[in-house]
C-alpha cells in the first residue's frame, strides 16, 4: 500500500520542521486544554459561550476576552505567568501555522524564484505577527 517506507522528509531543515510541526501540534492541544480549564476555574464556568471559549483557548489574555461576561477578568489573568504562557503559545502556533502554509504553497509552486519570494514574504509576515502578539501581550 505505502509507496515509501519512511514518511520523514530528507534534509535537516525539512526534518526539523516536520518534527516541530508534530511536537508543537501536540503541545498546543495541551495549551488549549489548560487555557479552557483555567477559564472555567477562574470564574467563567457558566459565563462562556462558544466564541468566548475560543477566545480563551486560542489566546488567554484579558485584552482579548473583553466581550465575555467573566467577572473580574483582569484579576486572575493579568500576571507574568499568563503573559509567558501566551507568548509560548503564540510562538508555537505561529511557527506551526506559517510552516504549514509554506508546505502547502510549496506543493504547488515550483519556480525557484517564486519559492524564494514566497518564503521571504512568509518570514516577514511571521516575524511581524510575532512582534504584534508580543506587543499586545505586554500591553495588557
Amino acid at each position: 500500500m505505502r509507496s515509501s517506507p519512511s514518511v520523514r522528509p530528507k534534509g535537516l531543515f525539512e526534518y526539523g520542521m516536520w518534527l516541530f510541526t508534530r511536537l508543537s501540534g501536540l503541545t498546543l492541544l495541551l495549551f488549549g486544554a489548560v487555557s479552557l480549564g483555567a477559564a472555567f476555574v477562574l470564574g467563567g464556568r457558566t459565563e462562556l459561550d462558544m466564541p468566548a471559549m475560543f477566545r480563551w483557548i486560542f489566546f488567554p489574555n484579558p485584552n482579548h476576552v473583553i466581550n465575555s461576561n467573566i467577572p473580574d477578568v483582569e484579576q486572575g489573568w493579568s500576571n507574568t505567568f499568563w503573559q509567558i504562557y501566551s507568548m509560548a503559545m503564540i510562538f508555537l502556533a505561529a511557527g506551526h501555522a506559517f510552516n504549514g502554509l509554506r508546505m502547502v504553497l510549496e506543493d504547488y509552486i515550483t519556480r525557484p524564484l517564486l519559492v524564494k519570494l514566497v518564503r521571504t514574504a512568509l518570514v516577514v509576515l511571521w516575524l511581524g505577527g510575532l512582534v504584534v502578539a508580543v506587543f499586545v501581550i505586554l500591553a495588557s
Partner: protein
Amino acid sequence: MTLNRRVSVRSGLRYKGRLGMANWLLHRITGLGILLFVGIHVVMGFLGQRYADNTAFTVNAIYQSWAFQLFVYFSVLFHATNGARLAVMDLFPGLIRFERELIWLQWLIFIPTYGLPSFIMIQNTLTGA
C-alpha cells in the same frame, strides 16, 4: 498507463483516494481556514480597537454568530483530532499498522465532542435562549 478522461460524471466523482486521503485534504483545508480566520481576526481587531472601524465590528459580528461558530468549531476540532492522530502515528511508527482503527478512534472522539455543543447551540438559537 494513461489517464482516461472519457468517464461519466458519477465515476469521475467517485472517491479513489486510499485510506486517509480525505482526512489529508480536510486537514489542509481546515488548517488554511484557521490561519485565514485568525489572520483576518487580528487585522480586524487592530482596526476595531484603534480606529473604531465599522467593517471590523461587522466582521466580528459574523465571526461570533452561531452559524460561523459551527464552521470554526468543525475546523478547529477536526484539525486537532486528525493532527493528534498524525503526530502519534509519526512519532510511534509501530502504530501505523493500526491506522484504520486510529481513524475510527478519531471520529469516535470527534462526533460527540462536535455534536453535543452544536446541538446545544442550534437548540439555543431555535428556542431563543
